[in-house]
């Protein structure tokens, strides 16, 4: 299994508060990974660093087989390198149709002039249909994204990520506020996606993580506390202490 993304020795400080502390973690190609951890463990900051929103104070973030450092790249360049990100709150373009949302995300040249001259092709249309199918939005393509239900918006955003055809997908709390059935469907979508690419899910909900059935990384106070299968980490004493707050910790 080759390494796709390697984060090593990364630290970042906000106003004296160490949000990420000497964090090192690796992700392989075509891997499904869950990141769990209590509030303030640095999960979101970790995503911010990988996607270029936050610059770390020290450390390296190395990407792909050409070993590119992501630290010098802008958000859009990192996205073009093949890292997609889903935000905690669904952020879709509510004024536009589902199809337009997906079309915008489709992997095509991103330069303004290419975009102006871009015209619809059958190939793109087919790709949109596929993704809509995959995320269960086939019937919704002509609807305005703002009219979708909360769960559908989450899927649309995941669909947009898939349309980007990234090699690494960072997904922040995809199941928040979903019904049980919606959760199950989300799990399926993510697991299918992980067959061809790396998918990293940040989630609070243990049952959701259990259903993902994948390797789990536990973050605590900005660094990795434990890593392994869910059963392995939940039986880890330090993890239990952190989560349940044993006072003898």
């Amino acid at each position, binding site marked *: 299994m080759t390494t796709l993304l390697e984060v090593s020795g990364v630290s970042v400080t906000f106003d004296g508060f160490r949000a990420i502390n000497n964090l090192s973690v690796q992700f392989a190609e075509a891997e499904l990974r869950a990141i769990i951890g209590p509030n303030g463990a640095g999960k979101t900051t970790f995503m911010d660093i990988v996607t270029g929103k936050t610059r770390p104070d020290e450390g390296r973030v190395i990407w792909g087989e050409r070993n590119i450092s992501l630290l010098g790249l802008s958000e859009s360049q990192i996205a*073009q390198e093949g890292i997609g990100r889903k935000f905690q709150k669904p952020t879709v373009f509510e004024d536009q149709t589902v199809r337009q949302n997906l079309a915008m995300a489709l992997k095509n040249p991103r330069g303004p002039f290419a975009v102006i001259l871009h015209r619809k092709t059958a190939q793109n249309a087919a790709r949109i249909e596929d993704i809509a199918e995959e995320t269960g939005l086939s019937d919704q393509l002509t609807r305005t994204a703002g009219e979708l239900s909360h769960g559908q918006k989450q899927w649309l955003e995941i669909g947009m990520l898939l349309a980007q055809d990234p090699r690494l997908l960072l997904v922040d709390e995809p199941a928040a506020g979903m019904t049980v059935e919606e959760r199950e469907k989300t799990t399926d979508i993510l697991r299918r996606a992980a067959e061809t690419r790396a998918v990293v899910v940040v989630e609070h909900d243990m049952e959701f993580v259990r259903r993902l059935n994948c390797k789990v990384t536990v973050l605590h106070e900005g660094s990795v506390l434990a890593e392994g299968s869910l059963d392995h980490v939940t039986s880890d004493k330090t993890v239990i202490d952190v989560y349940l707050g044993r006072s003898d910790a």
Partner: protein
Amino acid sequence: MRKSFIAENPSVLWFLLALSGFTLGVVVLSEAGGVAVLSTSFVKTLGKTLCLCLIAVAMDVVWGYCGILSLGHFAFFGIGGYAIGMWLMYARTETIVLESLASQVIPPTPQEISDAIGNQIFGVVGSSEFPAIWAFADSLFLQLAMVVLVPGLLALVFGWLAFRSRVTGVYLSILTQAMTLALALYLFQNDSGLRGNNGLSGLQNIPGFESTPQATISIVFFLASAFALGAGYVFFAWLLSGKMGSVVKGIRDNEARVRFLGYNVESYKLLIFTVTAIISGIAGALYYPQAGIINPGEIAPIASIYLAVWVAIGGRGRLYGAVIGAAVVSLLSSWFTGGGAPDINLGFYTIQWTDWWLVLLGLSFVAVTLFFPKGIGGLFDYLVRKQP
């Protein structure tokens, strides 16, 4: 492709039909058209209004679609006017100077001609030297190029600086306002090379057409303005019809999301900012020959604010809204301030609209912002939704 574009954007077709009908009507009813119901000065007012509609469309694209509340687009409008005005003024003065020098015993040298023109144009600011920026004033072609190049370059440089440092929202608006103010203050100086606060005048006289009556000239410019508006409208509608429109609206609604999709948001903003600046320059170049005079006051920040007012009242985010807003408000403005509206006698006080129009405009603008954020264009949504 063209067919599908029109099919997907029926409003473009409706707009072009309405514009053609209006244009035809005005031409027929004008003095040049023979019926002479509309005076030449009113035709000019209508022609100018069309130019204002064009810049309003540009403003709508940059603000309503891309979310950049620019308070600087009237500066580009003014630059376009100055660029064409320089040629108009130079060429016309040249004609006059050549006429007066022709009576001399011996023919004038090029230097003498140039000195005489310089004296005519810059005597009012106590100078007779030609400033460097007039280097191309004798060439219509080059000055036409300036109409496009100068606003484009200014927008490019300014936009690059502003977007690069991720200045957004209110800050960006104020920055564009500062740019406008800086330009206006520069032009107000006598040594700016553009005649200080005298501005450029006599622009309604088109060199080479001295004997053509203004009635005809006014119709020609009216037609040119109508064509420019139609072309500009179609251009922007086309630009924003496809994926480009999606991206631009995406930037307006959620800049960060677009960035994480891999689009370089800054270059899109820069493109929109620059293209709309160029269109504004073209609108200005058509406007001022009809207005006859341009001075730095036209560029003052308040003008760009009025531009925002038109677009807001007409309805942001829809091109026809901008046209409606600009046309309605600017025509109402000239009706009210031109004494067209009857005074209202309250017994103890007579409301003269020349004085009270701006108060009314300001307050109705507040009302629109508070109660009808979609402007007049929002009414169309209401009608369309009611039908089915």
